[in-house]
Structures are given as C-alpha cells and as structure tokens.
C-alpha cells in the first residue's frame, strides 16, 4: 500500500493561556491516503479547527507528530512549513478569508504568484471552472457568499496542491449554495486526485466524503464511510 499523504500520531494540543479549558486535542491519530476525501465531523469545539491548523503547520502541537507527504512538520522548520503551505496545501475557510482589497481574479492570482507561476490564464480558467466567468474583477464585498467561497476554492485549486484543507466550507452559506460548493469542491478534487479534508459539523458535508472521521472532545472517536453518517 502507498504511503499515507497525512499521518497524525497521538497529537495533543494545549492552549497554554487557556487554563480553564481542557486540552483542545487529546491524543488524536489518523492516516489519510492520496486522493481521499475526508470529512472531519464534530461539534463546535471538538478540536477540528485545532487539528486543521496543526496539519497546515500554522500552529504547533503540544505533543505528537504530524507527517505530510512523509515529512515531519516539526522537522521542516518554519521555512519548510511555509513552502509546504505554499506549494502543497490549499485552504478554504468558513469565512472565505479573501483579501478584501483584491479582486476575485487577484485573489486567485496571488496564489499563483506565491508558487512562482504567475500565469494569468491559469487564474482566469480557474475562475471559469468554478463558474465565475465575468466576475473576475469584482471585489469580495461585491460577491455573494457562495461566490466568495467559489473564489476561495479557485484560489486553493489553482496552484494544484496535493491537499486541500477546508474548514467549514459551507458554514456560512445556505443549504443550496452549500451543496453547490461541496459538489464543486469534491468534483474538482476527484478530477485532480487531490486529497480533501473538510472540517464540518454539518452531516450534509459528510455525504460528499469518502470517509468520515468523527471528533469528540479532541479525539477521533470513530471512522465511518461517508454514506453512513447521512443515513
């Protein structure tokens, strides 16, 4: 069997300044293979976002080990982790996190610029692929929520990452739009064999996943195939 693209072993995360709460992660472990579409399912505060941030190298675990594409994040160093985010990871956030001062096109192009492939055609076609042809030069505040999330998806996909991390990608959208977004996101990932991990508290999202990892109080407690949760 091929090496898992992500391996997490006994991950702990303590927020030092937050003494009143229990640790956000308490020994989570998981493995994800190339091209898998995963739903990380759990209630708010179950540790999904923490796990996400740790996988992205945006934060440091208190204990435990994360390997992305076979590389230990802690050993990569800041520069290595930045490169990892830049070249190998794509992000989709609940609040879209588009840069408000950049147009849709520029937000996507920014991503290409960071991987040193400033190809305007790629950026345009990425936007076309998410159905935003003609809206390239709008600013985020001139777009609806769904459209903003489409931009975010285009931004994540355009640089052809091996993994896309989506944190509550539909959390801020109505159901119909949410479905469209999930459909788009999973379709694009399947087409390009990109690993997709979606953190969510909505069962609907799990419907689109190959595998669902359920988190409770900072631990991955059960693993079910995607369909199971919906039913």
């Amino acid at each position, binding site marked *: 069997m091929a090496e898992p693209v992500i391996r997490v072993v006994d991950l702990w995360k303590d927020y030092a300044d937050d003494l009143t709460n229990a640790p956000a992660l308490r020994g989570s472990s998981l493995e994800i293979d190339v091209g898998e579409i995963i739903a990380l399912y759990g209630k708010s505060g179950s540790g999904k976002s923490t796990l996400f941030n740790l996988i992205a190298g945006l*934060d440091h675990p208190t204990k435990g080990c994360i390997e992305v594409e076979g590389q230990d994040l802690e050993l990569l160093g800041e520069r290595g982790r930045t490169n990892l985010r830049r070249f190998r990871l794509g992000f989709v956030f609940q609040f879209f996190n588009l840069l*408000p001062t950049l147009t849709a096109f520029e937000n996507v192009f920014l991503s290409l610029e960071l991987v040193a492939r400033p190809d305007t055609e790629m950026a345009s076609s990425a936007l076309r692929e998410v159905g935003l042809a003609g809206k390239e030069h709008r600013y985020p505040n001139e777009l609806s929520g769904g459209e903003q999330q489409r931009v975010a998806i285009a931004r994540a996909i355009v640089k052809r990452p091996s993994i896309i991390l989506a944190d509550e990608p539909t959390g801020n959208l109505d159901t119909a739009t949410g479905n469209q977004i999930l459909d788009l996101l999973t379709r694009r990932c399947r087409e390009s064999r990109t690993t997709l991990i979606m953190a969510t508290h909505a069962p609907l999202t799990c419907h689109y996943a190959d595998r669902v990892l359920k988190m409770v109080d900072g631990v991955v407690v059960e693993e079910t195939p995607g369909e199971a949760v919906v039913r």
Partner: protein
Amino acid sequence: MKIVTKSFLRYLPRRLSLSLLQLMGVACGVAAVVGMTMSAITALASFSKAVGFLSGKATHSVQRPAGPMEEKALADLARDPSVEHFSPVIDRRLRLSNGDLVRFLGIDPFLDRAIRPEIADAELKRDTGNPEGALSFLLGDDAVLVDRELAQQLKLSSGAILQTTRGSLRVVGTFANPSGDPLVLMDIANAQRLFALQGFVDRADLILTDELGFRTRWENGFLIQSGRQRSIIFSAMLGAFRLNLEALSLLALFVGVFLIYNTAMFAVVNRRRDSGVLRSLGARRHEIIVAFLTEILILGFIGGALGGVIGYCLTRFLTALIGTSITDLYFFLRPEPSAWSSWILFAGIGLGCGASMLGGALPLWEIVRTDPVKALSGRVADRQSGRNAHRTSLAGLLILAISVILLTLPHTHIYVGFAGVFSFLIGASFLTGTVLVAVHPGLKWLLGRMGRLPGKVAAGNIRQNLGRTAVAVAAFMVALSMSVGLGAMIGSFRQSLVWWMGSQLQGELYIGKIGEADVPETFYEEVKRMPGLGGADPYRKVQVLYRGLPVYVASVDASVVQRFTHFGWLKGGNENWEPVKRGGVVISESFARRFKVKSGDTVVLGGAHGPAELKVGGIFYDYTTEHGLLMMDRSTFLRVFGDHTINSLAAFIDPDNPRRQELIQEIKRRAEARGLPMQTQSQLRASILKVFDNTFAVTRSMRALAIVVAFFGIAGALLTLFMERRRDFGIYRSLGFSTGQIATMTLLEGLGMGVVSYLLSIGVGTILAILLINVINLRSFNWTIFFYFDLGPYVWTAITALVASLGAAAYPIWKVCRTYPQMQIREE
C-alpha cells in the same frame, strides 16, 4: 508590484478617511519636529550671524569691566604698537516710538572702516552724486542710517524722521544689513550727545597684531576680549535658552514619533488578519514585511513631505516668537524665517519614513512573530491583550525605574535629565493597558450612567480592544500630560516670579529703564534730597565676567533696600544687608549654584583698578538672570568699577507718610521735566510679567501642537475601532440597537478613552511639572521654582481632552448615522 503588496496598499484609498487621518498624524508629528527644530536653528543662527556681523573684522575689544570707557583712552590705543586698527563704539538700544527696541551703534565711520567696512561704506557712499547729502551723516546733528529692512518695515525713506523715545532722528540713508539685528547707526559725536555720554564710549573694537603685548599694557582696569571669547560669552548668554529650545525640539520629536508609532501600530493591527490569510496561503514573512513596510513608508513619505511643508509654515510663526523671546531676554533680534529649500522636504520625508519605520518596527515584529492562527482571528489576540498589557506594564515599570535612576544621578549633563523625563513619559505610557484593565469597572459604571447599555458596551469595547485603545490612550495621555505638565510648570514659575516681585520690587516709582534710558546722577542726588522721601535706590545692572563667564553685577543702596524690601533669602533675613553696607556682596541663587559659591566665600571680580575681592554675605532667590547676579552697595560698585551710570531709580516712601501722594506727584513732575521714562510699581510688575509670558509663548505653542498631534492619534484610534467592528454593528442592529444608541456608544468610547487619558495625565502631568521644575529648571537655570498648585492647567487640559475626544468621535458618528441602517452581519 507583487499582489501581496498590492493587497496592503489597496487599503489606503479604500479606507481613505483613515488613511488621511494617519497621514495627518505623520504630517503633524513631522511638522512639529521640523517647525520647532528649524525655528530654533534659524533663530540661533541669526543670533550668531548678528554677533558676527557686528564684530566685523575685529580681533579683540577693550572696555571697562563695567560701564562706559573714557574716550581719552582712545588716543593711547591709537599709539599702541600692538593696535593695527581700532574703532570706538557706542553700543546701545534705542526704543522707537512704535515700541520696538532696536540696536543702536554710534561709530566713527573713518575709524570703523577697518573693522566693519560694509557699515562704514554705507555711511559714506550714499548719494555720491548729490553733494548736499554726502556728509549729512557726519554733519547732521540728528542724522542716522537705518538698515534697509527696518526702513521698509517702518516705511522710512531718505529724509524721513525716525521717532524714538530719545527724540526724532533724521534718516539720511539706508544700508544693507545681512544680520537679523535691526540696526540704527549714528556718528559717534551725535551718539554721545543722544545718550549723554560726552567724553565716553562703550568700548573700542580692535585689530591687534600682538595680543600678549597689548594685554600686558592694558590688562589692569580694562576688560580685553578676543572675538572668540566674545562669541563664547554670547553663546553662553543664550546657553540656557538654547537648551530650552533643544528640549522643545526633542519634545516635538518625542510627540511626533509617538504619534507616527501610533499610526504604524494601527496599520499593523488592521493588517493582522490579512497577514494571517497570507501566511496560511504560504506567503513568507519577508513578503508580508515588504508589503507592510511599503504601506507605512508611503504614509511616511507623503506624510513626511506634507509635514515638511506644514513645518516650514510653522517656522514662519515660531521663528518670530523665538526672536521676540531672544529680544526680550538677551539681544535684539529679527530672525528671518529661513527660505524654503527642498532639503526641508527631504528632511520631512526622512523623518516621516524614519519615524514610521521606528514606529512600525515593534508592531511589525509582533505581526510576523504571531502564529498565523492567532493572526487569522483577531479575537484570539484580544483575548490575550490583558496579559500583553501586563507584560507591557512590566516593561513600563522597568523604564520608569531607569528614569528614576537617570533623574537622581547627581551632576550629570542636562541631557541626562531630559532622557530621564522622556523615559518617565514613555514608561508611564506603557502602563496604560493595565490601567485600562484596572479602571474598566469604573469606566463601565461611568459610561453606563451616561449612556446606559450603549455606555456599558462602549466600556467593554475599550477593554476588549486593548491592542488599539491602550496605544491611543497612551498617546493621548502623553499629550495631555505635556499640557498639564508644561502648564503647571509655567504657572508655578509665574507664581514664583510674582512672589519674587513682591519681595524685591517695593518702590513706589521706577524712573529710567534698563538698557534704554539711564538716570543722570544729578537727578538721583536731587531726588535723594527731597524731604520726606523714604529712600531712593540707584539701581545699576551690568554684565561682567566672573571666571570667564558672563554674570551680572547690580549696585543698589543697601540701606534703602534693607529698609524697604524683604528679599527672599535662602538663609537668614534682611540682616544679610549688613555686610553689604560694609563692602560685601549678596548673590543670587543662580550665582551660588552655578559657581558653587557659599555664603562667607570670597569672589574676585576684575575692576577698573584691577581685581577686587568681595565677601559673600547672603544668597537670595532671583529669577532675573540664570547667569547669576551679584548685588553690592553703590559705594562698593563705584570703588570697584568707577561706573557712575544709574539704570533706574526706585523711590521708596513710607506707607504711612501723609504726604505720600504729594511726593509721588513731585517725583513724577521732576522726572517728566527731564524726559525720563517712569513706571509705577504695578506697571513695572506688569511689564515683567509680559516679558515672562512672551518667553513662554513658544512653549505654549508646543503645548498646542502636542494637543493637535494627540487629536489625530485618538481620532485615528476611534476610526480604526469603528471600522474593525462594523460587523459587530450588524449584530447590534440585529439586537435592536438604534442608530442613536450606536452613535452614543461611539461617542462614549471616545469619551471613555479621553476620560482615562485625562485622569492619567493629571498624575503624569503633575509629576512631569515637578520634574521640569526640580530637574530641568534647576539644572539649566540654577534657580528654584516653587510648585504652586493652580487649577488652571488641569481645567484647560480637561476641556481640551473633552473637545478632542468628542471631536475625534465626530467622524465615526457621522459614518454610523449614514451607514448603520444598511449594516448587516457580514464580512466586508
């Protein structure tokens, strides 16, 4: 341009109002520094230029240690083998009828040619085509030349009459005067008559070939100064004043950098989330640093350039103010604001960019250091801000400790004192975070009382957004403290001066005016003999050298002064006059401190017959000169210096004398008959206070500037807060807050910050005043100012704080009223 950078820069036009505020913040900071520094430099350069111009080519000057020199000494100078050239000079002030005091030189144009060719040429080269005018300067009894600028200012042309307190003088021509010193020239023969100096000159300017030889022949009884010594003495005269200006420039720099720091800090705070997004997308730290620096440098650049221009405009105003002060205190000067030069622009830009970098460095370091996760959610950062505030406070306490050490170090340079004062302000400003946390309940109660729920929310917002509010409060607090501190210091100084006047100025009438109209000795004799008069004090004040430094000697009638005044003595009482009657002296506090002379010591002064030893009988408080004052009886003064000049005559009358009014009228009548100016006690006191107030005009303008700077600081903070929380406004709206309530909330946020800033500034400002009095003044002026509590500065500052914080809230409120009804809970 990289998109990363672009994403930052797009904020500038997008949040135009905020950008403009930030720009104005930088511009005001830079303007304060440029304006103050340039004015100080210009005024001081103008001073040296005037000194240089008047000294001409003279290598030395010779004069009596005090008072005028007999003109018969000139013939010996003419024949002295070491004297290449000499030029007798009568160097006085002349009061014009418009009240201006100008320098007056009486010279011999023939002899002066070797010393001041430009001036001498001017005297003789006029009207060469017109024989009638050619010698008019020499032959007309009342002929004067005025410098061209003065002539223009007074609209005088050749043939016009210049009205002065010494009669009308006929202008026979004008001349170019490159110095900033308004100048009236007269032939020495006429000058002697004008100033009743027949047979005397003030000094002779010399070109010497052999200084040593000359000194051996002339040292005894004469004061010989080289050009260098003269300029050293002149700059020593201005030393404390220069220091004061330097301090004000530093103050401007401090306030300016603080504001720019404030501005940069807000810029960082605003970019925190974006930087988080960028980091999560894989942008490197340096890319974010470049983007951010580009943004603040653009602000720094434009703001700096603008500040340069505004600062230049300020110099036009400040230079005149400084000139007036120098004129009042030391030397008549008319400093020209320096001409516009593109260097001012460069300096402004440099300052703007430099200060922006400096101001941005700390917050920038924080932004790149912060984990992107925290950066991504502003909330997390603010949850920590209480902790941060305490950390900052610890740093503040450390700085305060350093400041205490600096301030208590004995005998160090005054700059160390300044450093101490500034570190005190910085240290105090670091404490604002903690203070905001601490006063939160009180503020909540206060704002709650004022605005009910919106008030409470406002208090919460101030507490929750410490990252922004603490900085704004710190900046505002510093500015208000300056206002309180400078105000309280000036007020105390003024009160001390009033107290001093009460102790020393007890005469009914003061006849004559120092430096303008001397009192003839015969008049003194006449007044002294008037029956029923309590006493007449013939006052003479003259600058002499003590240990090579300029000090003043005053001669009085010790018995009269002992009887009618009650000097403020450091030790003892009016019995201190006893040794003075016997040939001793009393010295001012400034003299005692400056030269470390104690009561009972002996000081040696160069007199007209060689060195004279004088025993110190007591030390008195005095605010007339920071250089030090020795007071002696007239008999001693005449013995030592042989100078019979009387600058002013004070007439004392016993308070219970029934003929009091009659006597006053009689003296007035006699003085008028002689054309002598006179002042009553209250007029004299008022004129002294006027000079005092003029002197502090510059300081007051700095105070105003600090407030303006602070206004932009707090306005920027409020606007940032407002923009950051637009989404919250959507929530408030959804909760049913009305537009009015939101406006109230915004207003109370501004007010809340203003109140906290003001409360802090009461303490910090009072301590600042005490530091200024007990460290800066004592060290640079050598005199003790007594701290007098006066509500004035506090009330004034309170009003300023109120107006500024409400004014700062005005724009956000306007925005609220306009946009609130459309606001939704959504991202920007």
